[in-house]
């Protein structure tokens, strides 16, 4: 019966199932997926004559439904890295064929047996210069409502980032963040809870800051990059910027696995990574990519700001994802 249910679900979703010389790439939509299409899918199709169909947005529930029903219509999916680690443990992912995907130049922080890096990014502190007097310089300032009044915006979902920000603001040293002290983090978050506006997706975070609806917030650096490109009057602090990564995975039982592996090789190649980074402002996960990029773009990448940079611990999150999520949503609903 379970299978029937999942089968119906997957059947309804199977609108984009690809033929032999096709494959389906799924990502988060918006400017990010546009850049992925242009930098990876189009050149890949031109050189391999494998057509890449775009789908999205990424939905972990759908991914699990497909695998459970053994009717997988996505071949490569862009997911958050902590989810990838958890999903691999639950048997939802194919191993990466490193005979096809060259591994040597991939940043080892963002690749493992079942995933290769897609891009990596930093959470940075950004603000609307028209709505904030002065320059917030650290996460602690985001919790100082006297010095910096106004609404602040944070990522809505249970994911690496906000908990760490609260702990850093409360004075926890960067090297003592893990294991996360959730009680302390939520206590700190309580102090500004009524001033928080949550953003659920990247476009929303851009809109909140650009309109001044929120004076400042925790944003993905690529979204600040896009705001600056549009000429919005935003300030940004890279102090204590928090890195995390998206990775590319192949769901277990993907129908076009061979094409998928070839696609991964192209997406993680120095050129593919360089082009995507130039289009999005996110950092490449191939260590050779920067040599192919314009110097002014390289200067704006997260790895130009390693001073005070903190790596969010994806393995810790993968292991504690469920229990943190349960507390996170319970706290939010209070």
């Amino acid at each position, binding site marked *: 019966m379970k299978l*029937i*249910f999942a089968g*119906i679900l997957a059947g309804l979703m199977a609108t984009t199932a690809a033929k032999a010389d096709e494959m389906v790439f799924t990502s988060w939509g918006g400017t990010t997926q546009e850049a992925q299409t242009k930098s990876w899918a189009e050149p890949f199709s031109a050189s391999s004559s494998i057509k890449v169909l775009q789908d999205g947005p990424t939905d*972990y*529930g759908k991914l*699990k439904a497909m695998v459970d029903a053994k009717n997988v219509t996505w071949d490569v999916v862009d997911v958050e890295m902590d989810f990838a680690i958890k999903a691999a443990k639950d048997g939802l992912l194919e191993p990466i064929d490193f005979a096809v995907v060259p591994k040597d130049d991939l940043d080892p922080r963002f690749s493992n047996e079942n995933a290769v890096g897609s891009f990596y990014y930093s959470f940075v502190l950004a603000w609307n210069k028209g709505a904030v007097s002065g320059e917030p310089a650290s996460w602690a300032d985001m919790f100082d409502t006297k010095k910096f009044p106004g609404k602040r915006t944070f990522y809505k979902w249970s994911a690496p980032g906000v908990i760490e920000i609260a702990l850093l603001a409360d004075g926890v040293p960067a090297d003592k963040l893990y294991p996360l002290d959730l009680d302390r983090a939520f206590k700190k978050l309580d102090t500004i809870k009524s001033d928080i506006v949550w953003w659920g997706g990247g476009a929303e975070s851009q809109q909140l800051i650009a309109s001044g*609806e929120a004076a400042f917030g925790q944003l993905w650096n690529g979204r600040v990059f896009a705001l600056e490109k549009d000429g919005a009057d935003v300030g940004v602090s890279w102090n204590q910027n928090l890195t995390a990564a998206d990775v590319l995975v192949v769901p277990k039982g993907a129908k076009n696995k061979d094409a998928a592996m070839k696609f991964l090789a192209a997406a993680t190649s120095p050129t593919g990574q360089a082009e995507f980074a130039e289009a999005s402002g996110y950092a490449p996960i191939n260590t050779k990519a920067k040599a192919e990029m314009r110097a002014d773009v390289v200067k704006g990448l997260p790895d130009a700001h390693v001073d005070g940079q903190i790596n969010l611990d994806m393995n810790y999150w993968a292991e504690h994802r469920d229990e943190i*999520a349960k507390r996170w949503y319970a706290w939010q609903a*209070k």
Partner: protein
Amino acid sequence: MPVQAQQGIASPRTSAGLGGLAPALILIGLFFVVPVLALLLRSVTDPVAGLQNYAALLGDGTYARVFFNTFLVAFVVTIVTVLVAFPVAWMLAIMPPALASLLFSIIILSMWTNLLTRTYAWMVLLQRTGVINRALMSVGIIDQPLPLINNLTGVTIGMVYIMLPFMILPLVGTLRAIDPMTLRAAALCGASPFAAFRRILLPLSLPGIAAGGLMVFVMSLGYFVTPALLGGTSNMMLAEMIAQMIQSLLNWGLGSAAAFILLVVTMALYALQLRLVGNSRATGAA
């Protein structure tokens, strides 16, 4: 089901009738009955067999609060919708038919506009830097933006707007069926306009209010988009929590159990509606 129908033991007429119904029955079975049964089954088998999902849902303070929020929002939305819809419906009922049908089509037109678009429009109007707050601040009525969004106020405004047609339509039908002479008679007997409203109009329009009200309440219980966009995290409703369980936590057992509870409550309310106002009067009015 179809086999049973064909082997029916009743009169030929009945059996032929049921045979003709087979495609419809298969459709309903396949797309409505089977999924609901699968949902129920999953809620008591995932991750292991037992009632632990229901125990977790009903025994946890957070989930209890979300259930409470769901009913609170549905209740508030229903009350406000009735209050706003009644004068509109009364106006539509007594105005010249030509003008009334024009206004009707405007109301219906709003129902045909995309839900997401309408909700985003409310975001633009209600947010701190939105049209309403800017206007009020520029004329000096307020000097701090009013909190109109990401709270119960925002959800109520957005949902009432969306629910209004579902309340107005049955109500107009009921009101039109009321003989205006009864009100004139009341006035002649010395009743004040308020007394006439309270003792004549209101009791006579109750079936329409009950039909529309229950419809609005039941629809509100399962609403997702509008509360998710206009509400805050502390007004989270059940539909949003179910989406979280399914998409983010991948806890399908718990999500199924929550969905099933919502379904049972909705069905119970529907049964109540049928009992209170009767099938024909509830739907035949509009």
